[in-house]
């Protein structure tokens, strides 16, 4: 059996581990066009802030790869020829496959305004982008950041920590309005201001201006003009579906796969950011851009490619991130609607977070440590934990485990309830029962 994996991210690596766990001898080939191979893309944020060296972002050694016994090819797959079970590489050579995994991830949506191709216009998609930001930030000291979600703040914080003066432009009146509530946005914005970031609200860039082919400012929809040396943007990502679309595979926002990560061609699977995965519980197909699910999907896909039958059941999506230096865990369903700063989905994001049905909010907290719970009829639907993370792990388990919160629902919704204490106490009992 010949297994071929397109893409060098975590979904692909997890698939190889899964295949090897059941098939020690089959031939495995991984092919990718990212010159840096497998590294921690989310870790680029910490590389930008200077918390670690770029070499530390590579989790595996050559010896680790040797043990997995697969062949790595650097190249770009230009076509999938489904009838002949063959890939076309770099428009010329051909590579046969028996089972194929497409795990090519997603890419940044480009900024489409005049001047967006000028030198000094930056994104944070790959290792090379991060290196470019670091190179430019040594020389240029005023930046404008546009966009939303986690990546926009990673850009803001990375640039600030490199001594760059940052103006952060928001199209609306607050940060990440379809995931965070008003107070949470306010906490983040307040902390950014304390770090010296200048925030501009209702600011939509309509043109990047430049001189000698280099950015020197932006013009806004309301006529304002701002000067800058760098413009960094993070307005969302888009699954890299072109290859699958050209091959006639079923596509919606991502490559459509069933709960076995299988496309409408039984020999072809997809996993990670490129895959829009069917969830048998809700009956919906969802896009995530999260490291954990990408790994789990890759693993399940690998097993299924090797002839096992393992359904991927989507857990309550969650992510841990730092927003303006504040550790924040987002679990389950917490918001709804759209955010004008983003198109579609962002990195570190899940569509599920914005699918909140009617729920009642219970919240507590002061300035830094905040806890917001989305309380359904019998279950917790979602939670946001900012600052102190003591409760994030219990909440993750309670929400994923669908714990029946009927015994504490009224207490949680009482005025001025100490919801942290109530959850902690409930967790202690639930955990004991779950173990028993």
């Amino acid at each position, binding site marked *: 059996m010949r297994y071929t994996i397109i893409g060098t991210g*975590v979904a692909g690596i997890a698939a190889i581990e899964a295949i090897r766990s059941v098939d020690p001898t089959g031939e495995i080939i991984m092919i990718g066009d990212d010159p840096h191979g497998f590294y*921690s*893309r*989310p*870790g680029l944020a*910490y590389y930008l802030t200077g*918390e*670690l*060296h770029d070499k*530390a*972002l*590579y*989790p595996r050694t050559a010896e680790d790869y040797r043990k997995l016994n697969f062949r790595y090819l650097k190249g770009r797959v230009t076509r999938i020829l489904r009838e002949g079970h063959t890939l076309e590489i770099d428009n010329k050579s051909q590579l046969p496959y028996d089972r194929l995994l497409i795990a090519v991830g997603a890419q940044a949506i480009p900024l489409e305004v005049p001047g967006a191709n000028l030198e000094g216009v930056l994104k944070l998609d790959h290792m090379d982008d991060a290196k470019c930001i670091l190179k430019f930030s040594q020389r240029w000291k005023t930046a404008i950041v546009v966009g939303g979600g986690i990546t926009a703040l990673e850009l803001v914080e990375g640039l600030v920590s490199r001594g760059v003066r940052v103006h952060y432009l928001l199209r609306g009146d607050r940060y990440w309005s379809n995931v965070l509530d008003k107070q949470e946005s306010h906490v983040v914005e307040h902390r950014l201001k304390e770090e010296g970031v200048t925030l501009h609200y209702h600011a939509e860039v309509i043109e990047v201006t430049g001189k000698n082919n280099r950015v020197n400012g932006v013009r806004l929809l309301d006529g304002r003009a701002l000067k800058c040396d760098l413009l960094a943007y993070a307005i969302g990502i888009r699954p890299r579906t072109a290859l699958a679309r050209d091959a006639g595979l079923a596509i919606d926002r991502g490559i459509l796969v069933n709960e076995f990560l299988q496309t409408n061609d039984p020999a072809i699977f997809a996993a990670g950011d490129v895959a829009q995965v069917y969830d048998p519980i809700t009956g919906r197909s969802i896009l995530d851009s999260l*490291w*954990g699910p990408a790994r789990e999907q890759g693993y399940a896909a690998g097993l299924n490619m090797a002839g096992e039958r393992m359904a991927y059941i989507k857990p309550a999506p*969650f992510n*841990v*991130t*730092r927003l303006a230096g504040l*550790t924040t*865990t987002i679990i389950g369903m917490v918001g709804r609607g759209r955010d004008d700063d983003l198109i579609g989905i962002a990195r570190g994001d899940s569509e599920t977070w914005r699918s909140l049905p009617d729920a009642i909010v219970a919240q507590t907290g002061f300035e830094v440590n905040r806890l917001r719970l989305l309380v359904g009829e019998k279950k917790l639907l979602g939670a946001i934990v900012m600052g102190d*993370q003591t409760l*994030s*792990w219990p909440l*993750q388990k309670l929400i994923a485990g669908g714990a029946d919160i009927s015994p504490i629902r009224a207490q949680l919704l009482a005025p001025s309830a100490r919801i942290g204490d109530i959850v902690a106490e409930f967790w202690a009992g639930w955990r004991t029962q779950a173990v028993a």
Partner: protein
Amino acid sequence: MGIFRRDTERHKVLATGHVVPDSSRCVQCGICTYNCPIGIDVRAHVWRAEAVTRSECLTCGECVARCPRGVLRFEQTDLFVGRGA
């Protein structure tokens, strides 16, 4: 609950505990491994969802404190019973 009580607890954990991961929070950035003063590949333990039970581990807490995503915690383990996570 005073500070002293917490401090005693902390010493107890440092003496008899291990670094234990919650792998689902990890993105393999490597800050833990990068900051380990004796070069333990903490990240690889997290990938495999294993506690750091190596005898060289000083339980100094660098990896626990530096992890930006709260992956690692100390957990008291009974050395005479077992060494698992």
